[in-house]
């Protein structure tokens, strides 16, 4: 028994030593890292800045970059919020809606972007998906997080060094400098915008479409129905919309796929009485690469044009603006920092 106790004590010493060093490395890492969840920062300002959101949108990066509310907020005083974030799926859209339901105006207009890949999962491994969604642990309450995992919560808040991956190299400043120097000696060739977009379009297509057993998951479709029911129950006017893509991106999807996608969206729209507008292949955007930052994401100029277009062409949006007075709250730049 004595030998057993001694062995256990030795193990504890090693564990405590490891923990001590881990704390030290973690502290250092938190000082040198770039916040990987910076796109979630905007949510921290909702409580202090917003109480009556009039126009907003959900969605993934397509929505994040397509809806540009500068003009509506700064110039016209509407209270707007862009809830979209990169790779955001409908279950997280729903979680965000549930968490921030009290911040919506009684008459609110909400754009719900539907992308070609909205109904499948970017990653099929559940654990990998949980780590990809760690950013939600920084602002959503545990009860709203789908498949809440306390381990990820602890890592995200207290031990980010454990999920640092290659960023861990930042703990060693000398090395990072050498890497930067090496990179600067090998500048990437400018292969031309079109070629670059084409390459990115392919990569994105493969990321979203390869290795998928099913492209239109029932679970995702159900999530969208849930969001639309939520909107109905809370008096929110929902508008389904597919944002513009370059032709380089759209052409990668087969006509059959687009037809099936369109059929599913039309069915949802009809079932729920929600209007749907498809700008994915709108020639005003598809052939104008200057409106895009890459193959499927609008840049600021493109987003500004897109907002003008939908104000004119989406009756729900136009009517909303004409009948709803801005609440005067306007733009608070804090969240953008």
């Amino acid at each position, binding site marked *: 028994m004595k030998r*057993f106790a001694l062995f256990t004590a030795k193990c504890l010493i090693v564990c405590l030593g*490891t923990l001590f060093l881990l704390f030290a490395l973690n502290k250092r890492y938190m000082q040198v890292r770039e916040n990987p969840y910076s796109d979630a920062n905007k949510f921290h300002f909702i409580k202090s800045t917003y109480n009556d959101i009039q126009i907003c949108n959900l969605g993934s990066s397509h929505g994040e970059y397509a809806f540009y509310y500068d003009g509506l907020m700064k110039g016209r005083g509407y209270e707007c919020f862009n809830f979209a974030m990169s790779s955001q799926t409908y279950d997280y859209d729903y979680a965000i809606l549930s968490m921030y339901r009290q911040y919506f105006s009684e008459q609110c207009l909400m754009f719900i972007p539907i992308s070609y890949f909205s109904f499948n999962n970017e990653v099929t491994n559940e*654990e990998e998906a949980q780590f990809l969604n760690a950013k939600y642990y920084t602002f959503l309450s545990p009860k709203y997080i789908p498949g809440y995992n306390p*381990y990820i919560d602890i890592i995200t808040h207290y031990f980010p060094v454990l999920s640092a991956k*290659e960023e*861990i*190299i930042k703990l060693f400043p000398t090395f990072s400098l050498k*890497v930067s120097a090496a990179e600067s000696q090998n500048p990437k060739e400018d292969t031309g915008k079109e070629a670059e977009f084409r390459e990115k379009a392919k990569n994105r297509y*493969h990321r979203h479409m*390869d290795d998928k057993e099913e492209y239109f998951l029932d679970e995702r479709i159900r999530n969208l129905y849930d969001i639309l029911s939520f909107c109905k129950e809370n008096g929110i006017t929902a508008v389904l919309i597919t944002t513009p893509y370059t032709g380089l991106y759209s052409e990668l999807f087969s006509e059959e796929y687009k037809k099936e996608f369109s059929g599913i969206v039309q069915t949802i729209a009809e079932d729920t009485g929600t209007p749907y507008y498809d700008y994915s292949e709108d020639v005003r955007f598809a052939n104008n690469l200057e409106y895009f930052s890459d193959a499927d994401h609008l840049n600021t100029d493109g987003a500004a044009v897109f907002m003008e277009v939908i104000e004119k062409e989406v009756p729900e949006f136009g009517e909303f603006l004409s009948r709803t007075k801005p609440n005067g709250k306007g733009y608070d730049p804090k969240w953008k920092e």
Partner: protein
Amino acid sequence: MIFNSMAFAIFLPITFVLYWICPAKYRYIFLLAASFYFYMYLDASYILFLLSTAVVTFSLAIALQTAKTPSLKKAYLLIGVLLLIGVLALLKYMGFFLEITGLPSPMIQLMLPVGISFYTFQTLGYLIDVYRGKYCAERHFGYYCLFVSFFPQLLSGPIARGDALLPQLKEVRTFDAAKASYGLKLMAVGYFKKLVVAGLLTPTVDNIHGNPENYIGFVYIIATIMFALQIYCDFSGYTDIAIGCAALFGIRLSENFKSPYFSHSIREFWSRWHISLSTWFRDYVYIPLGGNRVSKFRHTINLMLTFLISGLWHGAGINYILWGGIHGIYQVAEVTFKTNGKNKPALLPNSSSNDSQEKAGGKLRKAFSLAATFFAVCFAWVFFRAETLSDAWRILSLSFYGIDNFSEYLKTAVICLDMSYEYMVYLCIPVLLLILYDYASLKTNVIQYISSKKIWVRYPVYIFFILAILLFSEKGISTEFYYFQF
């Protein structure tokens, strides 16, 4: 339960403490219950297959030992072999057989219990050993059941022999701190291999092998080398954890890997790779077929058959059979073109495999034979990993596409891999550590070497190692061990 799960992190310390607190004569019951829980945690119904195997082989072993006539003995053995192989064939190979014969699939989907290939072979080996009179049949069902279900080696080996494991399970032991300490360190090495090296390589390998049509050229060669490292770290990592875990309970399992990629011939490779399986095939397939004590032609047939069966054991697919066949051809070629004129048995882990190294002479020749063996093994891995034969063919035929413009050939691969410099460095550090560890293991037992150092040397090494596992391990990447599917 899998070794790299939170459930196991809770299960093991509790089992370890309770085992040593438990009165010595009841420990086997406790270990048996823990093993059942460990297995049933994956799927409770799996236990039915395990128990049936244990009951059948336990009874048959006693029956064949007490049988009065040799023909009756043979009959009992035959029943055992047919039952065990029959169940394995039905569960694992039925679909494959129907697919290649074009027969309609059955309406019922049969489940394949995890680890069935391993415990089937372990019990089959036990039956044959009892038949041969190598040792007596076990008369205590509790101990025998533990022999079949001992949790550290239940899911993916090492495949234990009755005379090695059964006496250890019966032995009344006192706690041995040195053994337990060695076990923990070996487990740490295993976790490093699995969670860090294999974990880091898995996404890239899966990406390229999952969609080979998206890639071309040198990237295939990189992916193949990466897979060679991935599968080694995955499986030898599992084995290290299993052996280390057993050592915590004072039980010694047989070694399964000995730096296989430092082999100078395919024969040597097989004396270092999955040793418990290759010795199993040597003792129960190759030697009964006649081994090398037959004509050259028969010897060739024996080698080919053994490796084809080994390939089939790994999985129900043409690619696995081809993989086995390629290794068979390698072995036949080595025997045929052997320069010293001796036709040594090619599948003998304990044979004098170092002879050829010693005689080869010259560092350059050694380096060449090492590289040639590694690439020959990698060539075979292409078939093992490819999802279809056409994928394997694509990878092999287009691996050198564009090599005439060498700088472009390399550049395309770098672009295809889409890795930052930081990520490449991050990837290389653990791989280099692994190569160093394996190289050092050729000369000495690294764990014992470190353990013999002063406290201020060895403790920082332990802490550094655990930190490396915590910081570099890929979280959120596929956690299953590759060999579970076999």
